[in-house]
C-alpha cells in the first residue's frame, strides 16, 4: 500500500490541495507534487503497460529517467502523449490517461504476449518470422505489429496546437547545466571571477538530491546552504538563474539548447508554452548529477519495485511512502539511506539484502542499530509476478537462485550503483573512461569536446564527473567552476576548500546478475529495459548470434531505444553483453549519446514560426489591391503573385482566358514588381557583364535594351532578362522573379572571389521599384491620356521611345522609367515607379484605362501570352539541364567574346552532341491541349527495358486567342522535323498526337509589338 505520510514532503504545500484525474477517476494531491508522487499517494501502483509484452508497469524512478510512468496528458488541443509522470508538475484539473493497453489498464488483452508468448518472442524474433507467405507482411503481420506497438495515442488527426512557442538567443561566458549543489557551487565559483554565468535547472526546484541525502555544507544543512547560495547568486548582476529549463543538447562551437517549460504546470496561464534557448557559451559546465541503476533480478519490473534513491525522494520530497513493507536490495551503501528514510517515516524495512559478501559500512551499521535485518551476500531471486509486489524470494547472491526464502513485502527498493549523467558531455564528442571500482563510465577530462578554437569547452562538475560523496562532489564542482571561468578568459583563482560532513562509505561492488549465476528462467524474467521489454536473456541471445557490437545488440534487442534512451538500462545491458562475449565493458564500448537529453516538444523546436509567421511572405506594393480584386494567388518563392484575377461567377480557367484575350484585344496590366532589378556600375561593369551574360552587353548603347542569357559555369541556362544601359558605366539588369537574390549573389560571388580587382558595384534595387507592364493595343493610349491629364510627360510615341529602348521621365505626374519591351508580343511598356507610389500609379493606370478596356492579368495569362509568341520561360523550358543551344538561342551566344561563364562547358562532348533535344512548337492534331510534362516516345526500349523517348513537352496551354492547344517542347532533331507527327502517351492511356511546328504561334512577323 502506497500512502501519503502525515509528515515530510518538503516540496508540497499541504494547504493547497489539487484535484486531478487519472483514467477518468478524480484524485487529490498537493501543490508541489509531481503527477508521479500524487499517483503514488493515491496508491496507484499500476501506471502503464510495456511495449512488447504489455506487462504491468509501475513508477520506477523520480526524475527524467523514468521509463514506465508515461501518460497521455491534457485533452483536445492541449493533449500530448508520452508525458513522464515524474517530471509533470501537478496542477488543478490535470487530466492524465495511462497508455498502451486495451481495453483497460487493469485488464489488458495484450498481456497475453507476456503470459503465453513471451518465450516465443525473444529479441529479434521478427527478423526470423513472418517471412512467408510474402503478402502477409504488409497485409497481416505488419498492421498487427503496428497496432500493438506505439505508446500513447496519437493526437487527433485534425488537432491544431492551442499553444505558442518561442526561441531566445543568449550568450554567456559560462553555462552551468544543473542546479544541484554541484551546479550552484560551480556557478558561484565561476561568477566570483566576474564571468557572465547562466544556470539551468530542469526541475521547478533547486538543489537536486542533496536535501534528500542529507549532509552539511559549510556548516549548514544542505537545504539551508542551497537557499543561501541561491540568494547570493540571485543578487549578482552577472548571474542568471533559470528553473524549469533543461539543458537539452550540446552542439559544436558552444551551441547549447535550453528547453524552458513555461506553462506546462499552468496550461491556462497564457504566453508561450515552451521557450527554446539557443545559447552560445564559451564554456559549459555539466553538473548533471548521476542516475541510479536498477539491479537485474527476476521480476524487477513488477510495480512497486523502485530505485532506492527514488523511494527516498518520494518520502522526503513529497511525503509519500511507496510501500509499508519494504525490501531493499543493494550493492552499495547509498541504499541504506533509503532504509533510514523508510524507517524514519514509519515504514517497515523487512529486509536489506546486500549482495556484497562483506556488506556495507557506517550507514549499514546505523541501519542495523535500528533493528533492521541486514543480510550480506544475499540477493533477490525473484519478485512474484503481478500488478504489485506481494512476495519476494531471497537467495544467496553467489548462486543460481536456489534455496529461496520467501517473504512478504509490498515494495522493493533497489540500487545497482550510480552512473554519472554523461549525455551532455558526450553529445559533442566528449570521451569516457570506464571506472571499474564504481562500475560506471565517467568523463575523461583529457578528451573533452573541443570548440572552434580547438580547446575544450565542456567541464563536468560534481557527481557528473564520477565522485559521489558530498565532499568530493563539492570540491569537484568548485574546481570545475574555476576551470570554466578561466577557460572563458577570466582570471585564474585558487579554489578554497569547502567544508562538508560526509559519511565514509564502503566500496560498492558491481552486480550485473542477481543472483550471480541466475539460471535461464530467471534471466528471462530479469528486465534491463523496462519500456521496450528487453531482458538479460535477450542481450545474451544477441551476443550468441553474433550481434557483438554494442550498436548491433542495441538495435537487435531495442535495448536503450525507448523514450528514456537507456538511461536506466545502458550500463546493465553493456555489462551483460561484455559477460556474454567474455570481454570487458570498456572493450565492448558504449553507444553514442544523441541529443536531446530527454525529449523536447516539436512545438518548441519550430518556435514562433507558425501561422502568419511560418515563413516570410513577400508582398508587392500592389498586393492589397490584388487581394481585394479577386486575385487567385500562387506562391513564387516567398512571393505571392496573382495567378489570375477571378471575377464573380467565373472559374479560374475562364478568368485566364478572358485576361489573355483582353490583353491582345484591349489593354492588360501586369504587376511585374517581383522581377529582379540589379544595378551594375563601375569602370569594369561592361567587361563584367560580358562574362556574366552569354551575349555582349558592353557594346549596348545608352538608352537601349537587350535581352540577355545567363549560364552557369557548368553551361546550363540559369536566368534571363532584359538589360538596359543607363549611362557610361551603369547597366540595369532584369532577372526572373526567383532570380533577384540568386543572381545578385552569383554576381557578388564572382566579383569577390574571382575578379576581385575589377571595379564593379552591384546593388539590388528590386524592391525600390514597383513595375507595371502596360500591355496591349491600347497601351500607348492610356499612357498618353495619363500624361494629358497631368499636363505633360514623357513622349511615349513610337519615334520617341522605340521598341527595345528606355527613357526616364514623368508619366501621369509619376517619376518613372519606361522600357519598351514586350514579353507578350503586344505593344508593351514596362514602367517602373518608386515602390511607395506603386499602388497610386496602378490606380491611375486602372482608372485611366477603363475607357480602353483595361483588365489586370496574372501569371498564367503572362505564360500563355509568351507561349503564343514562342518565348521561353526560365523554369519551364529550362530545368537546370538545358543549354541555350537546346532552345535555338545560338544567336545569343557571342562568338566575338573569348570567354563567358558557360562557354568552356558548352564544348564538352555531350553538350555539343547533335542528338540533343531542341525546342520546337507542338500542335495536337485535334486541337486539344497536350498534357503537361508528357514525353514523346520513339521506337523500342533501352538496355534497361525502358521505352525510348525522343522528346518532351515543356509548356502547354489552351490559347484562347487561337482557340486551340499550343505547346512547346524539346524534341530530338526537332527543328529538322517540322510537320512530322509524334506521339505523347498520357498517363491515362490516351496517346496524344502532335505535329512539330514553329514555336511562334501568333504574329509570326512580330508586327504587333513594334507599332
Amino acid at each position, binding site marked *: 500500500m502506497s500512502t501519503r505520510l502525515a509528515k515530510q514532503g518538503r516540496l508540497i504545500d499541504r494547504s493547497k490541495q489539487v484535484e486531478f484525474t487519472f483514467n477518468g477517476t478524480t484524485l487529490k494531491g498537493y501543490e508541489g507534487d509531481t503527477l508521479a508522487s500524487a499517483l503514488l499517494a493515491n496508491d496507484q501502483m499500476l501506471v502503464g503497460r510495456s511495449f512488447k509484452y504489455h506487462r504491468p508497469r509501475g513508477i520506477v524512478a523520480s526524475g527524467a529517467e523514468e521509463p514506465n510512468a508515461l501518460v497521455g496528458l491534457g485533452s483536445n488541443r492541449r493533449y500530448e*502523449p*508520452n508525458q513522464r509522470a515524474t517530471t509533470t508538475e501537478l496542477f488543478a484539473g490535470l487530466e492524465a490517461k495511462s497508455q498502451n493497453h486495451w481495453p483497460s489498464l487493469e485488464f489488458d488483452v495484450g498481456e497475453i504476449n507476456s503470459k503465453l508468448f513471451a518465450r516465443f518472442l525473444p529479441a529479434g524474433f521478427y527478423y526470423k518470422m513472418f517471412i512467408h507467405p510474402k503478402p502477409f507482411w504488409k497485409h497481416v503481420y505488419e498492421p498487427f505489429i503496428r497496432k500493438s506497438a*506505439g505508446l500513447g495515442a496519437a*493526437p487527433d488527426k485534425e*488537432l491544431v496546437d492551442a499553444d505558442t512557442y518561442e526561441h531566445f538567443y543568449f550568450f554567456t561566458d559560462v553555462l552551468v547545466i544543473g542546479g544541484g549543489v554541484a551546479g550552484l557551487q560551480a556557478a558561484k565559483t565561476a561568477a566570483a571571477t566576474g564571468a557572465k554565468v547562466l544556470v539551468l535547472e530542469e526541475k521547478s526546484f533547486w538543489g537536486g538530491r542533496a536535501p534528500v541525502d542529507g549532509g552539511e555544507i559549510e556548516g549548514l544543512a544542505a537545504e539551508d546552504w542551497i537557499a543561501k547560495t541561491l540568494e547570493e547568486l540571485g543578487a549578482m548582476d552577472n548571474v542568471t538563474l533559470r528553473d524549469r529549463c533543461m539543458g537539452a543538447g550540446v552542439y559544436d562551437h558552444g551551441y547549447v539548447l535550453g528547453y524552458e517549460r513555461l506553462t506546462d504546470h499552468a496550461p491556462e496561464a497564457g504566453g508561450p508554452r515552451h521557450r527554446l534557448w539557443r545559447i552560445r557559451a564559451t564554456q559549459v559546465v555539466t553538473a548533471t548529477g548521476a542516475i541510479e541503476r536498477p539491479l537485474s533480478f527476476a521480476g524487477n519490473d513488477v510495480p512497486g519495485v523502485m530505485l532506492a534513491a527514488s523511494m527516498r525522494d518520494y518520502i522526503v520530497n513529497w511525503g509519500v511512502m511507496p510501500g509499508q513493507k519494504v525490501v531493499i536490495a543493494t550493492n552499495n551503501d547509498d541504499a541504506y539511506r533509503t532504509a533510514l528514510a523508510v524507517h524514519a517515516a514509519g515504514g517497515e524495512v523487512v529486509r536489506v539484502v546486500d549482495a556484497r559478501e562483506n556488506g556495507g559500512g557506517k550507514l549499514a551499521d546505523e541501519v542495523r542499530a535500528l533493528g533492521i535485518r541486514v543480510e550480506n551476500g544475499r540477493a533477490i531471486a525473484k519478485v512474484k509476478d503481478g500488478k504489485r509486489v506481494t512476495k519476494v524470494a531471497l537467495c544467496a547472491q553467489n548462486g543460481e537462485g536456489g534455496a529461496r526464502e520467501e517473504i512478504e513485502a509490498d515494495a522493493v527498493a533497489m540500487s545497482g550503483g550510480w552512473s554519472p549523467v554523461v549525455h551532455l558531455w558526450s553529445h559533442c564528442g566528449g570521451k569516457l573512461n570506464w571506472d571499474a571500482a564504481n562500475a560506471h563510465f565517467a568523463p575523461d577530462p583529457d578528451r573533452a569536446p573541443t570548440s572552434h578554437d580547438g580547446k575544450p569547452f565542456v567541464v563536468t562538475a560534481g557527481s557528473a564527473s564520477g565522485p559521489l560523496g558530498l565532499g568530493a562532489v563539492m570540491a569537484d564542482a568548485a574546481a570545475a567552476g574555476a576551470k570554466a571561468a578561466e577557460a572563458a578568459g577570466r582570471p585564474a583563482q585558487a579554489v578554497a576548500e569547502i567544508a562538508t560532513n560526509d559519511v565514509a562509505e564502503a566500496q560498492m561492488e558491481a552486480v550485473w546478475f542477481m543472483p550471480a549465476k541466475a539460471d535461464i528462467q530467471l534471466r528471462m524474467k530479469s528486465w534491463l529495459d523496462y519500456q521496450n521489454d528487453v531482458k538479460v536473456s535477450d542481450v545474451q541471445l544477441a551476443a550468441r548470434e553474433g550481434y557483438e557490437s554494442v550498436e548491433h545488440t542495441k538495435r537487435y534487442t531495442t535495448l536503450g531505444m525507448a523514450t528514456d534512451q537507456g538511461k536506466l538500462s545502458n550500463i546493465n545491458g553493456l555489462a551483460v553483453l561484455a559477460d556474454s562475449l567474455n570481454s570487458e565493458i570498456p572493450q565492448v564500448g558504449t553507444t553514442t549519446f544523441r541529443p536531446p537529453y530527454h525529449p523536447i516538444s*516539436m512545438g518548441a523546436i*519550430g518556435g514562433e514560426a*507558425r501561422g502568419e509567421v511560418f515563413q516570410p511572405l513577400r508582398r508587392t506594393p500592389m498586393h492589397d489591391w490584388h487581394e481585394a480584386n479577386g486575385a487567385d494567388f500562387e*506562391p513564387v518563392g516567398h512571393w505571392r503573385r496573382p495567378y489570375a484575377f477571378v471575377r464573380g461567377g467565373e472559374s479560374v480557367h475562364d478568368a485566364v482566358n478572358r485576361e489573355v484575350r483582353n490583353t491582345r484585344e484591349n489593354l492588360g496590366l501586369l504587376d511585374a514588381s517581383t522581377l529582379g532589378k540589379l544595378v551594375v556600375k563601375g569602370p569594369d561593369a561592361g567587361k563584367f557583364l560580358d562574362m556574366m551574360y552569354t551575349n555582349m552587353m558592353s557594346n549596348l548603347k545608352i538608352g537601349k535594351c537587350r535581352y540577355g542569357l545567363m549560364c552557369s559555369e557548368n553551361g546550363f541556362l540559369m536566368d534571363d532578362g532584359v538589360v538596359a544601359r543607363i549611362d557610361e558605366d551603369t547597366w540595369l539588369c532584369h532577372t526572373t522573379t526567383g532570380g533577384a537574390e540568386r543572381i545578385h549573389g552569383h554576381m557578388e560571388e564572382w566579383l569577390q572571389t574571382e575578379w576581385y580587382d575589377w571595379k564593379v558595384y552591384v546593388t539590388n534595387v528590386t524592391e525600390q521599384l514597383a513595375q507595371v507592364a502596360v500591355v496591349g493595343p491600347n497601351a500607348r493610349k492610356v499612357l498618353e491620356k495619363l500624361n494629358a491629364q497631368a499636363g505633360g510627360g514623357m513622349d511615349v510615341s513610337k519615334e520617341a521611345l522605340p521598341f527595345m529602348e528606355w527613357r526616364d521621365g514623368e508619366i501621369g505626374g509619376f517619376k518613372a522609367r519606361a522600357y519598351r519591351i514586350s514579353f507578350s508580343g503586344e505593344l508593351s511598356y514596362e514602367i517602373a515607379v518608386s515602390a511607395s507610389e506603386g499602388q497610386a500609379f496602378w490606380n491611375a493606370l486602372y482608372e485611366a484605362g477603363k475607357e480602353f478596356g483595361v483588365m489586370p492579368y496574372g501569371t498564367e495569362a503572362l505564360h500563355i501570352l509568351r507561349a503564343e509568341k514562342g518565348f521561353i520561360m526560365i523554369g519551364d523550358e529550362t530545368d537546370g539541364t538545358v543549354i541555350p543551344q537546346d532552345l535555338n538561342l545560338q544567336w545569343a551566344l557571342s562568338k566575338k567574346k573569348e570567354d563567358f561563364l558557360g562557354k568552356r562547358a558548352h564544348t564538352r562532348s555531350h553538350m555539343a552532341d547533335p542528338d540533343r533535344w531542341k525546342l520546337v512548337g507542338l500542335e495536337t492534331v485535334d486541337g486539344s491541349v497536350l498534357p503537361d510534362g508528357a514525353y514523346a516516345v520513339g521506337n523500342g526500349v533501352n538496355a534497361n527495358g525502358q521505352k525510348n523517348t525522343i522528346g518532351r513537352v515543356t509548356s502547354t496551354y489552351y490559347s484562347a486567342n487561337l482557340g486551340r492547344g499550343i505547346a512547346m517542347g524539346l524534341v530530338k532533331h526537332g527543328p529538322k522535323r517540322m510537320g512530322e507527327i509524334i506521339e505523347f502517351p498520357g498517363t491515362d492511356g490516351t496517346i496524344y498526337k502532335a505535329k512539330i511546328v514553329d514555336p511562334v504561334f501568333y504574329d509570326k512577323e512580330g508586327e504587333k509589338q513594334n507599332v
Partner: protein
Amino acid sequence: MKRYSAFAVAREALRYHMGWERAWTSPAPKRHYDVIIVGAGGHGLATAYYLGKNYGITNVAILEKGWLGGGNTGRNTTIIRSNYLQDPSAAIYEKARSLYEDMSQDLNYNVMFSPRGVIMLAQTEHEVRGYKRTAHANALQGVPTEWIDPKRVKELVPIINLEGPRYPVLGGLWQERGGTARHDAVAWGYARACSAMGMDIIQQCEVTGVRSENGRVVGVNTTKGSIDCDKLGMVVAGNCSHLSDMAGFRLPVESVALQALVSEPIKPCMDVVVMANTVHGYMSQSDKGEMVIGGGTDAFNNYTQRGSFHHIEETVRALNETFPMVSRLKMLRQWGGIVDVTGDRSPLISKTPVNNIFVNAGWGTGGFKAIPGSGWAMAELMATGHSPLAEEFSMNRFKEGKFIDESVAAGVAH
C-alpha cells in the same frame, strides 16, 4: 545455415533459444581473395551477395573498419521509392525496389519491406508540373506512379493539413509500391547470406593502403594485415575520397552531414510515407510508432556525424505546419550521418583509372532505397565489366557534361 521460420522460433523457444547459431561468422582474413569489397554497409554487402548469387564468385572478403551496417545503412530514414525522373535513376531505383519486394524470402531474413506507399506532395504550380512530368516519365520507365488530387492525399494522410496558410496541397505523386524497410535488417540479412556462401566479413578491419602494380591493384594493407585480391570494390560512402586517395585517383565527391530525427512512439496515425519538398519535410511512421523525419544536409564538408541544428528546426517547423498535430509530439532523438555527394547529386557505379578497382559511391541522401539495385549493378560491373544499370553512372559523365540531375522536377533525393 539454419533457416529462419516461425517453426524454428517455436522449436528454439522450447530450449530457451540456446540453439541459435551465429548469423555470420567472424573469421580472420585469408591471404588472398578473388574480390575484396571495402565497406560492409548495405551497398558493399549487397555487392558481395550478388557476386556470389549471380556470378558464383564467393571467394570474397568484405572489409569493414567499424561494424557491419554501422554507417549510413543504420542511420537513414528507410524510405524506398523509385519515382525518379531521369531514366538511369528510375532504372536502378526500380530494380532496387523490385528486389526489396522479395528480399525477405530471398535472404530468409525478414527485412520488413513494407510497401505502404510514398506520396510526394505538390505545393506549388511548379511542383505540380514537375511531378506530372515525373508521372509521364515513370509510365514509360515501367515504374507505376500516379498523380493524385488533394482529396485522395487527405484519405491517405489523415493528419495532413491540406489548406496550409502558405502552401495549400495541390496534389501529389503517389507510388503505391514504395515504402520502407527495416534498415539494420537489410545489412544483417545480406551479411548472414554472404557468410552462408562462405564469404568472409571482416569487421574492425580498416584499410590503410592500396597496393598497385603496373596500373593494377594487387591488394590492400589493413589493420589486420596485408590481403591480396584480384579485384577491389570500394563501397565506403562518405569515406570514398579518403580511400581513392590511397589508390591514387580522385573522385568528384564531397562529404557532408545529413540529419534525421524521430519522435517518441505513438499509436499508428500515418501509414504512408510523405515527402513535402517545398517546405523540406519528410516523414513516415515506423512500425514501432516513432515518426521518422528526414532533415537537410549541411553545405560544408564534415566528418563528425553531427549536423547543424538549424536544419532540424527548418524541418520541424515545416512539419508543424503541414501536419499540425506533430507540434504536440516530442523529438526523442536526432542524429547525423556523413553522406557523399557528387557534382550532380547522382551516384557513381564506375570503373576507375585503376583498371581492376571499381567504385560505388556518391549516393548522397538517397542510398538506402538503392541498396539491392546498387549491389546488383556493381556486382555485374565487377564480374563482367559491363552493366546497363550502371552505365550512365560512370564517373566519366562529368567530363562529358552528361549529368543525371534529379533536382529538375523539384524531386530531391531522399
